[in-house]
């Protein structure tokens, strides 16, 4: 098969087996390159934490500080937890995460309640969809987990999701929500992950709330911030993406699941969650922009074709340097506040709307099944001329349209290919 799918970077198999791309030769303590989930296969070892053969002294130091703070968490300000979560390596291990994630979003002890049983919830209208997605989430569990334990966790996952949408009935389940829920569940357990997931889903600044509306329109709008952010950092790259017509779909699962669905390495996922739990709601979109910027060379060498570009971008390589990417994303955020970008996003959406109208028109004709003889180009363009000009002699008109055409082709060459 001589397609680019066989390229180790973009092949589907990479996502499935997770081990077809060569692992980079990196120092084991390089935090940008931690172990792949699939490499940790000891059946008894049910967590994803990796032991570093040799630990970065900076990290050893940070661990000590975190432990000191955890001795007496009540007197620690949330800013301190945020600093830990955002700086290099984040919260380092799941043992710390389990305690600190709830604190980052302000979950209190009395919110930790016993979950109801699955049977009580099975009549919910979303039950089937949730179960379907939960049953297909095998990849997200620690490798080697005993069957019974996995099934028990999957039931907890279903309960967790249904509990939230029962408590907040106007929130709609989306495919991908289960990827966020399972990350919380694996780290914090079923009691703490319920209030945690509620905080993330409900409220004016809840980061997942826009995804849970009746339609995906709000999500699409927020994803549209990606291109303007990229454009401000690298105009040529933005142009390249724009020209391919790739849109934002490739990044949709990233945003909807905070990368949980799209990354093979568990350690990368939880590291990102450390950050996202205390970042502004739109921050994951800036991380998306930073990833695309990081992959600019590949984008430039890709054909300006929607399918090729989608394929290239949607498959994330296993060796992304997330520590650097987070730093870049933070800088992008500081330099380009969402409010600054609003007009650019609005312009982009207007343009899309116009394209959609053209498309709708085309579709109507298709549906009518009519043969649409396309008028000769000068005449097509003549339609856009002001009425008085249209009555000018034919030769003048032709010359004029030719001139306009030349200018138009110059600026919009892709339309004429």
């Amino acid at each position, binding site marked *: 098969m001589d397609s680019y799918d066989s390229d180790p970077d973009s092949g*589907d198999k990479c996502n499935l087996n997770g081990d077809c791309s060569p692992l980079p030769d990196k120092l084991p303590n390089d935090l940008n390159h931690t172990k792949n989930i699939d490499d940790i296969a000891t059946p008894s070892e049910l967590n994803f934490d990796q032991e570093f053969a040799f630990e970065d002294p900076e990290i050893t130091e940070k661990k000590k500080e975190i432990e000191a703070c955890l001795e007496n968490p009540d007197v620690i300000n949330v800013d301190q937890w945020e600093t830990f979560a955002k700086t290099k390596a984040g919260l380092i291990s799941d043992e710390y995460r389990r305690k600190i994630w709830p604190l980052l979003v302000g979950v209190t002890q009395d919110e930790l309640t016993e979950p109801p049983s699955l049977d009580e919830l099975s009549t919910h209208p979303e039950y089937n969809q949730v179960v*379907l997605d939960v049953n297909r*989430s095998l990849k997200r569990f620690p490798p080697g987990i005993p069957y019974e334990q996995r099934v028990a966790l999957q039931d907890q996952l279903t309960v967790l999701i249904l509990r939230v949408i029962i408590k907040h009935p106007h929130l709609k389940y989306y495919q991908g929500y289960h990827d966020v829920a399972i990350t919380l569940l694996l780290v914090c357990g079923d009691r703490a992950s319920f209030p945690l997931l509620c905080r993330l889903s409900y409220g004016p600044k809840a980061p997942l709330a826009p995804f849970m509306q*009746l339609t995906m329109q709000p999500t699409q709008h927020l994803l549209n911030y990606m291109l303007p952010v990229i454009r401000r950092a690298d105009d040529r790259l933005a142009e390249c993406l724009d*020209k*391919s017509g790739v849109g934002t*779909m490739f990044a949709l699962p990233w945003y909807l*699941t905070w990368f949980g669905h799209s990354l093979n390495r568990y350690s990368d996922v939880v590291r990102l969650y450390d950050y996202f739990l205390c970042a502004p709601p739109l921050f994951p979109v800036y991380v998306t922009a930073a990833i695309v910027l990081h992959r600019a060379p590949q984008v430039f060498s890709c054909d300006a074709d929607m*399918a090729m570009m989608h394929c290239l971008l949607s498959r994330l390589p296993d060796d992304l340097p997330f520590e650097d990417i987070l730093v870049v994303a933070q800088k992008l955020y500081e330099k380009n506040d969402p409010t600054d970008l609003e007009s650019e996003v609005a312009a982009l959406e207007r343009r899309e709307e116009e394209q959609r109208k053209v498309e709708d028109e085309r*579709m109507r004709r298709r549906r009518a099944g009519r043969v649409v003889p396309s008028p000769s180009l000068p005449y097509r363009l003549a339609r856009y001329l002001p009425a008085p000009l249209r009555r000018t002699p034919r030769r003048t008109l032709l010359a004029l349209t030719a001139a306009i055409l030349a200018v138009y082709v110059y600026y919009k060459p892709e339309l004429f290919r």
Partner: protein
Amino acid sequence: MSTSANESVPGLKQKKVFKIIVLGDSGVGKTCLTFRFCEGQFLDKSEATIGVDFRERTIKIRNEDIKLQLWDTAGQERFRKSMVQHYYRNVHAVVIVYDITKPETFHSIASWMQEIESHGLMGAPRVLVGNKCDCGTPESRLATTYAQRLADKYGMPLFETSALLDSECDNVESIFMTLAHKLYSKQPLRVISVEGELGPRRVTLSRQKRPLRNDTCLCS
């Protein structure tokens, strides 16, 4: 969009691309079927599809290499409305999948047909696929005659198959090959976009089903 067409080396033939969109309710096996066709095996750790996924495979028809692009879509309603829309553009053929053990997925076919129609794709080659024929008992499966009636009504071939069974591999193959052959035999009627400096050269055709410019991808 297809810059590649303009950069093609004269004399060196560019691969034809056929774009096929795969539709159907959540969980019927769209992802597994496209995976089976493109990778030749069952995807045993299938995951929910979020938005749109993409797979492709190069096949040969009369010694010519053809690229089949399969757009695997999310089944959940909320993704359909605004997001998947974009991907109906320039699609050449449609696969609708249902699960023969779940009648409700069969009953959704009508709404999928509406969706196809609203995108002006009724003229495109379409096939109906009943998946998971390895599952359930003969009584619990949706009767073939019943499915066949609906397929006839919509004028599309019906396939019953399984993405899971290796023995069904050929059958899965024939689903997509049927479409590819249909598209292949249809395409002399289409515009061949010729790379020129002055924009597309127009060819007048008597039985053109779709507006010209958007078909260039078929032949690029």
